[in-house]
């Protein structure tokens, strides 16, 4: 990089413009703070942009709206605020001791310093060990969605889906919608992990869901030409003689997500391992502030959940960050109370059991730590 670049200061920097980051920027901006919202993608919305299905859930305002419509609506609201700047194709690379954040944008390294930072970087997909898993044509589920739902490009003619959680099921449905044949959905566990509604939807399209199966090997030299799958026993070991060869030109992995928190590690935010929340997650309090003062987290970066909770956490991080900086948030106490109770409702019932267990562990670890 040529020369020293100037450090640009602002009140709040929000990293990641998915549902969590969008809401954080909106709420912080509404309170009058100078906000910089950055995302490495050429568009806002994060994972939402790829969601063509109507959102499930009945309690929240966006149920029944398609993901990409939600993203557009929030972005339009932000664009009305003069004190919020959105910078796209801007990747946050490093966070330094003096609070400087380096951002790669159009081939240049920019430096920013925020009085508060909201990290809303979302998640990354988990990988799976098997022979030839590095062949072109082995994709993460998110990549398949990006390719077909954002760019309108078909990832394959015939595909094997690995993982029958909600993401595997939903992406399979979307693949069929786009005109791709889904050869099968295989799932190592003895049961389908996703919701029954989604499973029934893909089954009705004629896609078989095979539980107790895993992928052993991808076939092909330059690109995927097929896959060998096999049964596994109750100790997750392959059962000999159960191999099946499937002709496909792509394999899609939907085997879970983990929080994306490199920047938080760099900022020395204490991280803890909580499998229920997706793996390593940052310590944080109820107001989404980490033990490192004025660094906030929200959404999947704080623990893998879903879009509505990401938006609520984003709002919480947004109003708390600006009120700490001395901006007055209209009706703060009520707003905060409402968000917290909405989050609680969202996480109630059997569907929220895992999250509740994870958050309980987080609370215990935090109390021990502070």
């Amino acid at each position: 990089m040529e020369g020293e670049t100037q450090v640009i200061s602002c009140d709040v920097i929000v990293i990641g413009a998915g549902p969590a980051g969008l809401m954080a920027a909106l709420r912080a901006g509404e309170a009058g703070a100078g906000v910089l919202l950055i995302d490495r993608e050429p568009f806002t919305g994060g994972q939402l942009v790829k969601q063509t299905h109507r959102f499930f859930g009945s309690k929240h305002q966006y149920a029944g709206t398609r993901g990409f419509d939600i993203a557009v609506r929030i972005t339009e609201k932000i664009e009305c605020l003069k004190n919020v700047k959105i910078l796209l194709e801007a990747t946050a690379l490093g966070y330094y001791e003096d609070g400087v954040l380096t951002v790669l944008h159009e081939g240049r390294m920019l430096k920013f310093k925020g009085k508060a930072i909201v990290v809303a970087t979302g998640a990354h997909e988990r990988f799976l060990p098997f022979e030839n898993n590095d062949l072109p044509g082995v994709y993460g589920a998110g990549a398949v969605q990006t390719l077909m739902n954002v760019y309108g490009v078909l990832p394959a003619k015939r595909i094997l889906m690995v993982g029958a959680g909600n993401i595997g099921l939903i992406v399979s449905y979307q693949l069929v919608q786009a005109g791709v044949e889904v050869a099968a959905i295989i799932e190592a566990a003895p049961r389908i992990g996703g919701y029954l509604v989604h499973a029934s939807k893909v089954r009705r399209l004629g896609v078989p869901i095979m539980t107790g199966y895993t992928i052993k090997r991808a076939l092909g030299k330059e690109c995927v030409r097929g896959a060998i799958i096999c049964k596994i026993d109750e100790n997750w070991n392959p059962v000999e003689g159960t191999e099946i060869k499937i002709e496909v030109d792509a394999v899609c992995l939907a085997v879970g997500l983990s929080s994306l928190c490199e920047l938080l590690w760099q900022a020395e935010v204490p991280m803890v391992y909580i499998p229920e929340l997706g793996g390593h997650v940052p310590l944080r309090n109820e107001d989404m502030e980490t033990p490192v003062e004025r660094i906030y987290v929200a959404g999947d970066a704080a623990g893998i959940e879903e879009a509505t909770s990401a938006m609520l956490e984003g709002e919480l991080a947004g109003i708390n960050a600006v009120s700490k900086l001395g901006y007055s948030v209209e009706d703060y106490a009520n707003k905060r109370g409402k968000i917290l109770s909405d989050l609680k409702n969202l996480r109630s019932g059997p569907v929220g059991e895992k999250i509740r267990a994870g958050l309980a562990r987080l609370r215990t670890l935090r109390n021990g730590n502070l």
Partner: protein
Amino acid sequence: MRIRRHPILSFKREKEVNFTFNGKPIKAFEGETIAAALHAEGIKVLSESKRNHRPRGFFCAIGNCASCLMKVDGIPNVKTCITRVRDGMVVISQHGRGDPGDIL
């Protein structure tokens, strides 16, 4: 292959953009990433592993995994899954780590 008809989505493909991949002219549309445009042409091998020279395609499409690095307009290690196509762009398969010597 590009999706022509979709039950829910419509794709804006207004302005054509022309670039080259290893010297071969490729037509794309404004707003597409390099990796998406190459995929639409059936080009799935974007890169290769450093030691064993195994082919690499894209995996994450969100700039996380670095399996889509290519040389773009002379600059190595460009994440082509989050870099948009521009008219006249020169895209080349990258061999090696992208050291200064590799650029020449």
